[in-house]
């Protein structure tokens, strides 16, 4: 383990990616408490302010579900099942507790299974509303306060306005740095590959925020001095989806002959694109960030305006990414039984195609079992837009 501490930048991210959870395990052994979370809808600022290590749970696409199916029906999202399978097999033995948001049915309806079978010292169901109007913001503030009080009870540490503000500022800094790293993908060719970026994103979500900040700084230094490799004209692709956390999918896209230059995925831009307003009262600022700024399909956005205005409110960020990152094709990769995304597919597809960017829609398991078939589709798509 001491070896990792001597690594820097991308090499360190690679190691954290491969041995996911290594650092959280070490910090736990040093007496820190580790709290697991599972989606972009978890206010990590509150965890940081309480002094615990926030640790995002992930599954392993290369590992078959062997125990989890005894607890969860197979119509549950394959990602959720896979993560639970890892948890029930004891792979997250170092976590003290977890927070699970009210988000999709696969999370909501299995929250009792997580709570009852993992037997963690701390478990909190964060009852996030799904609409974004004023009463919902008030409700969101209340549930954030409730979350704060439970985590305070668990840790014995009081979360003050100051500690919360400090945590917010740290997470904003982390986001700003990650966005600077994303900026290095804007050149053609990009200075950092999609698979390298995937490793950075996964490494970062397993670290306390101050360590993530240091890591991203090192990586920016590593990457910005690179001379772009020119190996022919490749199409610039954006990956859209939910819990995509493996380089297998990014490798598949890049080895088929494309540059993966941007994403709209849960562990990627969704985590890093919207800051928490530091000029506002922190609870309100957090409520607004997670309920209104964060663009996720489980949040129902109705501007009260036209259909077009609603589409802009829901997916406008994707058109912005297309413009800023010069995206030439989009891959919309959805897990089977993901109904929040499933409902969005036709709208996302037509919204992006309306700006003359082709979209490949793929639906698959959280598994590599059908990789060859995915490859054929991705290659055919790249041949089509060539």
């Amino acid at each position, binding site marked *: 383990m001491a070896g990792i501490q001597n690594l820097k930048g991308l090499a360190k991210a690679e190691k954290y990616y491969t041995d996911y959870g290594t650092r959280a395990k070490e910090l736990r052994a040093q007496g820190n408490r580790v709290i697991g979370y599972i989606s972009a809808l978890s206010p990590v600022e509150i965890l940081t302010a309480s002094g615990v290590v926030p640790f995002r749970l992930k599954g392993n696409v290369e590992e078959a579900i062997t125990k989890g199916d005894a607890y969860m029906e197979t119509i549950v999202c394959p990602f959720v099942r896979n993560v639970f399978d890892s948890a029930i097999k004891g792979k997250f033995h170092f976590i003290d507790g977890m927070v699970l948001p009210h988000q999709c049915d696969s999370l909501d309806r299995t929250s009792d299974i997580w709570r009852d079978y993992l037997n963690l010292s701390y478990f909190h169901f964060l009852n996030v509303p799904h609409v974004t109007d004023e009463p919902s913001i008030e409700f969101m503030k209340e549930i954030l306060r409730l979350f704060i009080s439970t985590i305070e009870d668990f840790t014995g540490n009081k979360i003050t306005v100051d500690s919360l503000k400090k945590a917010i500022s740290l997470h904003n800094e982390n986001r700003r740095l990650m966005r600077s790293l994303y900026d290095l993908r804007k050149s053609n060719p990009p200075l950092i590959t999609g698979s390298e970026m995937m490793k950075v994103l996964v490494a970062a979500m397993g670290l306390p925020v101050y360590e993530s900040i240091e890591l991203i700084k090192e990586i920016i230094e590593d990457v910005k001095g690179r001379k772009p490799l020119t190996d022919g004209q490749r199409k610039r692709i954006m990956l859209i989806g939910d819990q995509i956390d493996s380089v297998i999918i990014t490798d598949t896209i890049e080895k088929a002959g494309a540059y993966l230059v941007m994403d709209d995925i849960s562990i990627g831009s969704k985590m890093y694109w919207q800051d928490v307003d530091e000029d506002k009262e922190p609870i309100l600022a957090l409520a607004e960030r997670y309920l209104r700024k964060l663009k996720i399909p489980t949040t129902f956005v109705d501007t009260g305006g036209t259909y077009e205005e609603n589409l802009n409110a829901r997916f406008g960020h994707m058109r912005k990414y297309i413009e800023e990152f010069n995206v030439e094709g989009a891959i919309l990769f959805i897990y089977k039984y993901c109904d929040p995304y499933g409902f969005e597919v036709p709208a996302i597809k037509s919204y992006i195609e309306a700006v003359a960017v082709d979209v490949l829609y793929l*639906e698959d398991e959280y598994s590599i*079992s*059908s990789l*060859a*078939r995915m490859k*054929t*589709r991705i*290659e*055919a798509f790249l*041949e*089509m837009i060539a």
Partner: protein
Amino acid sequence: MKRYFAGVDIGSTMTKVVIFSDRIEATIIGPTGPEHRKLANKVMEEALNLAQIRFENLSYIIATGYGRINVPFADRQITEITCHAKGLHSLLPTVKTIVDIGGQDSKGIKIKDGKVVSFVMNDKCAAGTGRFIEIMADSIGVPLEDMGIISLTAEKAAPISSTCTVFAEHEIINKLASGETIPNLIAGIHESVATRVSAMVKKLTIEQDVAVTGGGAKNIGLVKALEKKLGCSIIVPPEPLITGALGASVLAKEIFEKYEREGQMPVRSSCGLQEAKIFS
């Protein structure tokens, strides 16, 4: 001097090779089979013999199909989707929608000016593929190639409600036991596949002309069932199995000539006519 190009299409069930100059010089169709999977070189040799040329006479070779990476002597790999569109367009330029029913895949491809504009493929389930019909043929004891013609004598298609291949097999055996006629059963099998395939292809806006390719196109009963489901007539090319390999050979020619126009030499595979070492 005449130039020759080759397209090699390794499907899950059949391996197809087309040798092309400015016309089709030779076509070979052979089984892929477990032991043949790495022996694309053997099928290529047969095609070369038929065309009466040597391997060295080939200017450029493209491999396609799910086994395209197992052709060490190919200069480039291109997916079957692009190749089917190209091959079919070269035969039947009026076709705008292709339905391909292969052994392991079925797909819908929309083409405009010979280029793919959109496509859909079945998911990893065998329902809606040639394999489904193959398994059912086996369980009722009818040779695969007779399925089409026998189904035309059906009085009424026996409905098969299971889309899962394993459950459908049970269903068919039960129906057989309770006295359903073989032609009615086969018609039901075709209807089941046609329903799956047409639902998938309808995700693309279907434009006529519509053509069907792949092994499924050789089954007249399936084609008729598909016409009914899609609500339009379907063109079956003279040899529906070779469109992928043909497209690959036409693309080989186009790519080679593009390099030539730009005054460059295409990068060729360094392997001779040898079998694949990696078995995947």
